[in-house]
């Protein structure tokens, strides 16, 4: 195969088959593959090789845990109990871990974008719902009692996740933005950006800890952060995701948030931090599948009267999540009249 006649190298084609190409290059590879019989043959050959290798299976007898392992386990737990009795090591580790602080703050920041329904609905019974906190009025508290398998939170189609993330902001912004997608180990870069914005699809653990949908695997909340928010808000979201994937409990996260702000280890939002949530797609929670398009602005604690938030007919809403919470963050939400694709949104 002459590489001069093909827009992608053979090695790249192999990487495409292995799922190792970035989304944009994978799209290019797929487009070429559909039209190139020569490359289709090569792909078929690679698949044949892979399939034939699978003939080599190793018979594995059913063997349980050996006596040596049992002994080692016994010794380990014995030692651990001894250490635990003399030193609260685990607690100390959790409480001083920077990434725990950071991840915990992410809760706050993501939650902001998802928790306004109740107050908004109370004030505006006749207006369409902007967003929701994922706490259905029906009180279905057992729908998602625990974390589902990680596969359920992942989007199998990487390109679909990229498109959904980008739909959070107008194309003039998101087409040049960096895009992250959720993988087995947390968020990873799918496409590098050029304008400092970062688009991402948040998952259910951005909801309040007491939300009945905290583990709802259907939640998909597309957001695009401006450069200031990408630096000060998004890293916390990423860390929070890592913490969730690592299996920390809600209690550990909550404790960490409180302690982190007390010790000044957690940072407040950078000046000018804001984000876009203008997608008509996604699934914020089971109650309000699609929010109305809106922008979110992040601040250190600010009096809501300075923005006229929550006043009659004011379009500005203060997220109530922070009113009684430990986080010194204020977030204002302002609905906008159009979806990210420029079409008109329902009147508020």
């Amino acid at each position: 195969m002459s590489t001069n006649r093909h827009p992608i190298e053979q090695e790249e084609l192999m990487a495409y088959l292995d799922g190792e190409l970035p989304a944009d290059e994978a799209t290019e590879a797929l487009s070429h593959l559909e039209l190139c019989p020569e490359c289709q043959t090569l792909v078929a050959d690679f698949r044949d090789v892979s399939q034939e290798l699978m003939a080599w299976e190793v018979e594995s007898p059913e063997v349980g845990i050996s006596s040596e392992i049992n002994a080692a386990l016994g010794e380990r737990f014995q030692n651990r109990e001894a250490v635990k009795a003399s030193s609260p090591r685990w607690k100390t580790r959790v409480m001083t871990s920077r990434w725990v602080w950071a991840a915990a703050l992410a809760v706050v920041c993501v939650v902001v974008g998802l928790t306004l329904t109740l107050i908004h609905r109370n004030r505006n019974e006749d207006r369409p719902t902007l967003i929701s906190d994922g706490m259905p009025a029906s009180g279905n508290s057992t729908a998602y009692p625990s974390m589902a398998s990680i596969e359920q939170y992942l989007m199998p189609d990487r390109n679909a996740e990229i498109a959904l993330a980008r739909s959070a902001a107008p194309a003039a912004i998101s087409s040049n933005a960096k895009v992250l997608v959720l993988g087995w180990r947390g968020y990873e870069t799918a496409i590098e950006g050029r304008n400092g914005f970062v688009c991402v699809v948040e998952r259910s653990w951005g909801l309040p800890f007491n939300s009945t949908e905290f583990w709802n695997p259907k939640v998909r909340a597309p957001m695009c952060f401006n450069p200031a928010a990408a630096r000060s808000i998004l890293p916390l979201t990423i860390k929070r995701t890592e913490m969730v994937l690592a299996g920390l409990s809600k209690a550990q996260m909550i404790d960490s948030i409180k302690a982190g702000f007390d010790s000044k280890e957690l940072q407040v939002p950078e000046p000018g931090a804001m984000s876009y949530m203008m997608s008509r797609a996604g699934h914020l929670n089971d109650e309000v599948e699609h929010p109305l398009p809106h922008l979110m602005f992040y601040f250190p604690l600010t009096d809501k009267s300075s923005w006229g938030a929550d006043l009659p007919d004011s379009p500005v809403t203060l997220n109530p999540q922070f009113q009684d919470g430990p986080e010194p963050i204020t977030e204002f939400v302002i609905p906008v009249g159009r979806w990210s694709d420029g079409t008109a949104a329902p009147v508020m």
Partner: protein
Amino acid sequence: MTSDEALMLEFQRGSRAAFEELFARYRKPLHGFFGRRLNHPARAEDLTQETFLAVIRAVSRYEPRSLVRTYLYGIALKLLAAERRKVLTSSTVGQSAPEPTTDGTPEGVLWVRQAMEKLDAADREILMLREYEQLSYSDIAELLRIPINTVRSRLFRSRLALKSYLESEGKSNPALRASAWQSHPRRRGMQ
């Protein structure tokens, strides 16, 4: 299903059940890892158990920086290297290395093994980590401490070589090639 990483952290916090779950998930894959590389079932099982012993001994230092899967294969690779050194030493002082077992091995498997043996050892390792352990390029690069582009280029070279070998052998011995297909009903494509 609880993630491997969550299980590891639970084990770190003292959960025996979490360890047992990890053991159930990875005993067979690790046995396959050693089995294909050593072709000595008894040692493969020993080293599988040793891998879990190493996990127990090091669990207090575990941090969820990489997948548990990658972490386990990292330990396995170290044990494998030690085993190979041991075998080499034994051979040089007059003891014979264990003979590969072939009794009862399906022809198709023998054929694949022969094809793999034609590859450069480093290339073969990369190919096996990808095909059998299904590790990503970056995981393989991390484990073998080589650049990711090297992983890709060697993987490509291995697959082309294997394709060529399999084709030539298949042409000369179609019955053997057919048996390779028949011996594995759970064929899959590359991911």
